């Protein structure tokens, strides 16, 4: 026999929004197409710039990038249409699965360029660290959704979060993949911050880092990683070596001037001076061919996309959904900032691509999956998650 409070409780579980119960068509209609369009706009810039960077060949990357955008778009849509509740329930399982895959890389991984990051499944290659980037956001979002507010700044609350972050970090750092490790840790901490951790804890943490980082630098990093950091401070002292990349990148950018040399007119590009200019360093092509205008414009478009995601986050009630949106957005923003800072010589070369514009396989798919999760969060913003919300 249900009393009033039970009914209330039950009511929370049973009251659903029309957007949730409606058919696929209805959901399609409700999807935030503006976000969709922004993502594809940036993707289109990517296709164009890869086309330019490969000397006008359609088949040397531009087409493949386009194909992946379509595929990613499909995944994005699919993920968006899945109820957020399902993601909520799948958060921890997905996380565990990713950790297991990372463990598998340790044992069965394929070595490429000196690091072991891939699993060879025969028909395709899988990079578990990419999956981990989404999985950790899901896990942390779920964690903080469940956590009572007073625990956030306490050791008990913090411990869980650090465990969630620390576990995959071990695997990824040892691959070795410094770039992804930094990204993961930064995203993790961002979510911890957003969850409302006490300022005192932050300051204490900063102190701890100030002590730990130099120790880490000396003993934790490999030589080439140290070299990369060193060359950041004086790249001109070794122009043909480790810092060649940065110097060439800056030259390519700088030579673009205000309005650039024009589409397909980049000389540094045509001279093969900037290595990886279809992947991590593709921004140099934008800078060289479209100058300051192109560069600032690109930054602006990314800015609009990021701002829009933040706007969407304000419209969402659940902590899980909020943190999910914010986590994905943070990861995405970090990609953009780190890549641009690297290309412009502000930070060492860490091998982070420019999402949606750089040519690559796994990154596009995971990024678009992430946006799918954002869309899902927004679409099902009125759905009820376990433990309810105010």
């Amino acid at each position, binding site marked *: 026999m249900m009393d009033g409070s039970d009914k209330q*409780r039950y009511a929370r579980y049973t009251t659903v929004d029309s957007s949730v119960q409606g058919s696929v068509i209805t959901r399609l209609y409700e999807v935030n197409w503006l976000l969709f369009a922004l993502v594809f706009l940036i993707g289109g810039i990517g296709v164009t710039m890869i086309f330019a960077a490969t000397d006008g060949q359609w088949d040397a990357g531009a087409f493949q990038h386009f194909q992946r955008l379509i595929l990613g778009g499909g995944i994005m849509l699919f993920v968006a249409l899945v109820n957020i509740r399902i993601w909520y329930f799948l958060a921890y399982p997905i996380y565990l699965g990713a950790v297991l895959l990372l463990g598998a890389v340790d044992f069965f991984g394929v070595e490429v360029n000196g690091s072991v990051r891939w699993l060879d499944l025969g028909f395709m290659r899988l990079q578990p660290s990419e999956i981990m980037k989404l999985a950790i956001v899901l896990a942390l979002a779920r964690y*903080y*959704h*469940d*956590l*009572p*507010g*007073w625990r*956030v700044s306490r050791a008990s609350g913090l411990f869980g979060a650090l465990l969630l972050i620390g576990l995959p970090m071990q695997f990824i750092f040892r691959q070795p993949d410094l770039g992804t490790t930094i990204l993961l840790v930064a995203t993790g901490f*961002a979510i911890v*911050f*957003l*969850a*409302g951790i006490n300022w005192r804890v932050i300051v204490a943490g900063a102190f701890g880092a100030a002590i730990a980082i130099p120790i880490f630098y000396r003993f934790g990093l490999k030589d080439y990683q140290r070299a990369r950091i060193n060359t950041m401070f004086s790249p001109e002292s070794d122009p043909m070596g480790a810092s060649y990349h940065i110097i*060439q990148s*800056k*030259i*390519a*950018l*700088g*030579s*673009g*001037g*205000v309005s650039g040399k024009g589409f397909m007119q980049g*000389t*540094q590009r045509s*001279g*093969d*001076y900037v*290595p990886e200019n279809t992947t991590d360093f593709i921004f140099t092509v934008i*800078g060289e061919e479209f*100058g*300051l205008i192109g*560069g*600032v414009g690109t*930054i602006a478009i990314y*800015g609009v996309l*990021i*701002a829009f995601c*933040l706007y969407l*986050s*304000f419209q969402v*009630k659940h*902590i899980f959904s*909020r*943190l999910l949106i*914010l986590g994905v957005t*943070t990861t995405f*923003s970090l990609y953009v*900032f780190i890549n*641009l*800072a690297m290309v*412009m*010589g*502000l930070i060492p070369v860490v091998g982070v691509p420019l999402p949606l514009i750089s040519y690559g396989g796994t990154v596009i798919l995971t990024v678009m999956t992430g946006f799918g999760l954002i869309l899902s969060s927004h679409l099902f913003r009125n759905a009820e998650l376990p*433990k*309810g*919300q*105010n």
Partner: protein
Amino acid sequence: MKPRDNEERIDPKTVTRRTILMAAGGIGAMGVLTARLYYLQVTKAEDYTVLSDRNRFNFNIIVPERGRILDRNGEALAVNRQEYRVLLIPEQVKDVEIALNDLNAVVPLSDATRARVKKDVRRKARFIPVLIEDHLDWNSFAAINLHAPDLPGIIPDVGQGRAYPNNGIFSHILGYVGTAGPKDVEADPDPLLRQPAFRIGKTGVEAAVETRLRGKSGKLKVEVNAFGRIVREWPNASDAPTPGEDVSLTIDADLQRYAAELFEEESGGSVVIDVMTGELRTLLSMPTFDGNLFVSGLTQLDMDALNSDWKRPQFNKVLRGGYPPASTYKMVVMLAALKEGIISTSERVFCTGKTQLGSRTFHCWRRQGHGAMNMRDALKYSCDVYFYELANRMGIQPIHDMAAKLGFGQTFDVGIKGQIAGINPNGAWKERRLGDGWRTGDSYNASIGQGFVVTTPLQLAVMTARIANGRRAITPHFIIDDEVPGFKPLDIDPNHLQFVRDAMWSVCQEPGGTAFRSNGSGIPGVDMAGKTGTGQVRSISKAERLSGVMSNAQLEWELRDHSLFVAYAPYAAPRFAVATIVEHGGSGSGLAATISRALIKRVLERDGMQARASDNSTTSQL
């Protein structure tokens, strides 16, 4: 851990607040990025544009064509020849080993070559051509071209290399070229030296006039990508190279070839000099070596062969060979005696075949002796005892001084390096070098051109030329340039010189003279004057003297005497002098004289010699 419904969740407002904070941070980051971009693209734009251009263009050095070396008639002695080579471009080849195997079927490759090619492929960038083999003959080159479609990545190529026609007859003069070594690069900072295709003169004329032969390098503007590979050439923006200057020598190639023929298998050398100008028409050291070997790269086999040949082909005997001049030195002693006035031309000395000095006996080459000799006869019959007497009377110093005037004990600036000064001995010299006092016996030996006296064939030629010229102390040279040498006056009494000349004439033209042949110079109406020399190489023991001195024919080659001869012609109006040595050739009247006579005849003929009326002539023809 799971909170109950009414337990406090994380406050969404907190999240909102924090979100705005992070957004602010993000805007800040974008601001930094934009500022940085502005800095790179606007503030530093000019720097980077220049840098980006500088990366693109390189100037490749073009090696200039080397000047040739010509003889006096314009015949080319050192030339640039098209060289056929075959190269490998690693990036166009799937497997270097297979490519080399395929090529081997067309043109055999040695194991050493293959190993070297593989090593070069590893060391260099993949698009840089690696030399497999150069100095290919035409057939091999044609074969490679024919099979080219089946040999991907194998490129037949035509380049330029230095070649010396004439089989090495001019090798000692010309020298050879090779790649610039560390010393060369240190001495000359021109980046041209570092080009792999550039060859620098190492010895001889090639080295002596290197700057004239070299020319000036050109520059080819090329566009390169980041790996240094040339993607385009810009010939219009390039500088053409200036070819080197051709250098002419005074040497007569035909004459030199003829001289080499005359020598056949013998070892020695010959110098033909113009007595008026000091120009060398021939400067030959036999046997020679093939300079082409040095250009294309000596194999160990070649090297061993050259070094073990006891006729020493690499050794320039006319410039660096020190020999006892033997009787060819007697003119010096005669002039010294005349100057000192220690004997008159008519006074006779009796030669019994030997003379005694203290406990030592000095012998004349003619065991039975010559009988009573005056000065002219002494030279004509080459009597040693007469000259011992001269030495006895004046000592070594006057001989030393006269020898210096005639060019002994010094080197001349012929234009190339590598000459010795020989030894013009006197008391001071012996003290300095051997720490011992001069003895009269040393003077005796010196008076017949043995003992401590050491001369080069070039010096003998110069001596003869100076005697023939009579007025100037001419010096030899063989490279033609704009400078005309002026000669110092020859500080010897002309009357004395005339006497000596007459005595030399009698050697060749009067019966009984040690070089008399029935046809004199070989050219009707043209008389030759000269002197024979038989350079003793070994000392003859008393025992042998008693039992009977062995003749040269009976001796081993190295123990045989050297054969020397000096001469000039025409006697009436001297034009050319010659000095010849045939190592271990036996007596001077033999081979050396034969060769010298033939050379004088030839050089006069080639000079368009018109026979002139002389004391002995009747008709004149060429």
